[in-house]
């Protein structure tokens, strides 16, 4: 390889009219024209590589930006009080008190997980963990909201086991407990499974690190794994252009993760932070060095000069363009003062992590990249990292929506009598979305680090942050894509409400939100309308609940042909707990507890699990959103938990009261006897609606009998609707008894509930 083939800034100026493959790289004609305008010349092929990847939908948020702005605009000063770092950094940071801060974020790795389930999911976990590390935090735990096609589809048997093994394989090896997630099956995800991953980390508030390159003369250090040709498929057109005679060498079609390298990188980075030798830090994720260098420089106050030929390579045939775009995993970039460099390198040596000084921060205002003696990139970094194109894509309410909303569940035959209700409950418990998920969750280590107070199948994961005081956080992620399909504005708020409620059931105080917005193509006005609706719904909802969105991720193009997935705005809520050892589990572990239902039940079956499982029906309007009721409910749960009145608490969601009761029985094999009479009378619903309606803002609480009176008084004082349903425990073999309707043994519930995924995969 000789320098002759490298396209330099000088060459670009001398050869302004050379044809460039901008279209093959995914740029539009006007975008290419703008690049030429910014530079006052044609871009070099390295510059073209950088702009094309950084201006992609994935990196630039060009279609979503105009909508996402609402998250910032609707964050009030009061909401901002506990926000140490907001949207715009690698992850948001929230103050949880006593000097502690937590950072959390959720991201998607959907498409790679379809192509190669194990490695796609594994590297998805790796990427989000690096985002959390790059804030200066120690990663504490991960979660994994997953969506697959139909459980009985042959391709699900390929994707599901690989994804689960990949998440476990990477997360377990990193030593991060997995504390929750979601598993949803729906044929709308058949060709577009959703693999979202969340990571939460903790740090002392004063230790926050930012992705910022300042201080002329400070060193730019790349550390971690070597750079290979991973994830540069598209840029090979540049390579072939550069090497007219020799075709490009073969580039990997998938990225392979090395969790061991990442674990070492975590410990090494934490030691670097503790030693005070890191001024700025950025993880290398999508767009690799292009992203890290341009973002660091753009966020700083000067320029940056980088010597690209110093990048340690796994594959020596890589071209400068490819090195700039490589998405090789397990790499970080730090800004280090010259006087700290020796200390920095001593620590990376100790961990046997390769570290290379690539260049330094300059007093100029350009990002300059050299390949040996040749200048191959000379750009204003902001123009690459932050001032990309912004589109207001056309929106249109989909034409099918009126008909879909009109086609509600009133037409569906309902179960008749006790036996019918019983049968439908068993059907729900044995359905792919309602069944026992241990086949998935037992592949994840939930114990590592010894700080997990709650994990699957509790409503929220809870981890200790401070070993002295027990202070910690609770986290839940949720989304019901069927609701979002029926009404994306309400659907996003329902996802928020459910995650918020799940956090509240543990006794935690909800504090902040991250989201992963999974949608079809933004070029489809119907999808874009769904997206705009969902973002607005979420932003409005967060404002009403007083929980700021701290960051998140957008995944577009989840569609096969013209058919998009259900809009799937996955919402993660984080709450704080004073002492995690005192949190509520979701099932009762003692007989004789008084069972209460908090909240009001309306007849709301449209989009419900019942309609989906029993009738394969989707239509109508989702349950009413009542955020004021959610807030009151969370306040009640917090007060009752603090007063020590709660034995267990379980949120009502898919499958309504029937499924919540059954899950409560199954948790510790202790029965329950309940009466629906009070519910029928107060809320005017029949037994069927009482059991299967999915009205929001409801929680099933078990209260020690000696606290029953105090609990009722507390609810009254909070203005919280409360209804005594019955008691836990029953004579003889443990059973769920719904008086006057049916009885079902825990054993029969378990038979329906367990082994469903195993059986489907084995067939």
């Amino acid at each position, binding site marked *: 390889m000789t320098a002759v083939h490298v396209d330099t800034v000088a060459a670009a100026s001398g050869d302004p009219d050379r044809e460039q493959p901008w279209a093959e790289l995914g740029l539009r004609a006007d975008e290419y024209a703008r690049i030429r305008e910014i530079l006052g010349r044609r871009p070099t092929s390295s510059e073209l590589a950088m702009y094309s990847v950084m201006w992609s939908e994935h990196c630039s948020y060009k279609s979503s930006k105009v909508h996402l702005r609402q998250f910032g605009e609707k964050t009030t000063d009061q909401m901002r009080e506990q926000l140490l770092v907001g949207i715009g950094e690698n992850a948001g940071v929230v103050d949880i008190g006593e000097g502690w801060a937590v950072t959390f974020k959720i991201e998607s790795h959907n498409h790679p997980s379809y192509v*190669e389930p194990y490695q796609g999911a594994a590297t998805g976990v790796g990427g989000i963990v690096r985002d959390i590390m790059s804030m200066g935090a120690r990663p504490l735990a991960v979660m994994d909201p997953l969506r697959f096609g139909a459980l009985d589809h042959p391709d699900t048997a390929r994707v599901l086991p690989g994804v689960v093994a990949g998440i476990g394989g990477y997360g377990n090896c990193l030593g991060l407990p997995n504390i929750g997630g979601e598993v949803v099956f729906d044929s709308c995800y058949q060709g577009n499974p959703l693999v979202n991953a969340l990571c939460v980390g903790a740090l002392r508030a004063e230790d926050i690190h930012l992705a910022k390159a300042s201080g002329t003369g400070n060193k730019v250090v790349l550390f971690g794994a070597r750079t290979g040709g991973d994830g540069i498929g598209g840029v090979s057109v540049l390579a072939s252009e550069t090497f007219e005679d020799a075709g490009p060498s073969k580039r990997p079609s998938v990225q*392979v993760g090395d969790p061991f390298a990442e674990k070492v990188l975590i410990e090494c980075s934490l030691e670097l932070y503790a030693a005070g030798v890191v001024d700025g830090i950025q993880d290398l994720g999508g767009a690799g060095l292009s992203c890290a260098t341009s973002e660091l420089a753009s966020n700083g106050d000067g320029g940056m000069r980088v010597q690209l030929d110093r990048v340690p390579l796994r594959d020596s045939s890589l071209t400068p363009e490819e090195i700039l775009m490589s998405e090789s995993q397990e790499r970080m970039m730090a800004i280090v003062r010259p006087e700290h460099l020796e200390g920095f390198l001593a620590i990376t040596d100790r961990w046997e992590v390769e570290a290379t000084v690539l260049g330094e921060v300059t007093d100029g205002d350009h990002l300059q990249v050299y390949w040996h003696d040749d200048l191959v990139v000379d750009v204003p970094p902001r123009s690459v990292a932050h001032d990309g194109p912004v589109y207001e894509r056309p929106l249109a309410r989909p034409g099918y929506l009126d008909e879909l909303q009109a086609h509600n569940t009133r037409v569906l035959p309902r179960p008749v009598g006790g036996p019918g209700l019983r049968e439908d409950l068993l059907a729900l418990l044995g359905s792919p979305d309602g069944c026992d998920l241990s086949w998935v969750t037992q592949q994840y280590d939930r114990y590592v680090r010894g700080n997990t107070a709650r994990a699957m199948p509790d409503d929220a994961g809870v981890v200790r942050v401070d070993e002295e005081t027990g202070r910690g956080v609770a986290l839940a992620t949720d989304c019901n894509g069927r609701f979002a399909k029926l009404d994306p504005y309400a659907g996003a708020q329902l996802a928020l409400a459910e995650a918020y409620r799940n956090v509240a059931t543990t006794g935690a105080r909800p504090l902040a939100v991250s989201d992963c917005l999974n949608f079809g193509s933004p070029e489809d006005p119907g999808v874009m309308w769904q997206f705009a609706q969902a973002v607005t719904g979420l932003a409005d909802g967060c404002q009403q609940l007083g929980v700021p969105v701290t960051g998140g991720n957008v995944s577009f193009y989840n569609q096969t042909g013209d058919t998009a997935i259900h809009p799937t705005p996955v919402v993660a809520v984080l709450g704080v707990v004073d002492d995690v050892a005192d949190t509520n589990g979701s099932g009762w572990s003692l007989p004789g507890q008084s069972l209460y239902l908090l909240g009001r039940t309306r007849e709301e079956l449209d989009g419900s699990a019942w309609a989906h499982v029993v009738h394969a029906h989707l239509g109508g309007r989702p349950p009413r959103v009542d955020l004021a009721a959610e807030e009151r409910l969370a306040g009640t749960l917090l007060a009752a938990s603090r007063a020590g009145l709660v034995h267990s608490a379980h949120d009502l969601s898919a499958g309504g009261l029937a499924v919540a009761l059954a899950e409560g029985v199954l948790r510790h094999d202790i029965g329950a006897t309940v009466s629906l009479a009070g519910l029928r009378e107060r809320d005017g619903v029949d037994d069927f609606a009482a059991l299967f309606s999915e009205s929001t803002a409801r929680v099933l609480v078990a209260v020690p009998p000696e606290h029953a009176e105090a609990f009722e008084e507390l609810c009254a004082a909070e203005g919280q609707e409360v209804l005594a349903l019955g008691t836990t425990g029953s004579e003889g073999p443990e059973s769920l008894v719904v008086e006057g309707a049916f009885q079902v043994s825990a054993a029969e519930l378990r038979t329906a509930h367990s082994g469903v995924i195993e059986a489907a995969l084995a067939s």
Partner: protein
Amino acid sequence: MGTVIVDVMPKPEILDPQGQAVGHALGKLGIDGFTEVRQGKRFALSVDGEVTEEALARAREAAERLLSNPVIEDVVSVRAEADA
């Protein structure tokens, strides 16, 4: 009894963290001189009687469909085991 041997290796362009770790460990043991180590899989498929052309064909099918993941691995060879 005959045996068909199927060799599967990670594609050359794909990261092989396992092989890398082995390479490092060899260096630390003082066994050096190897510029790269890659680790793959070796399958021994037994058949009753001789290894026939037909058994080889079935092994080739097994190698493509199950024993290798074409996205990240290559089937390096499928052959009857030489008598030891």
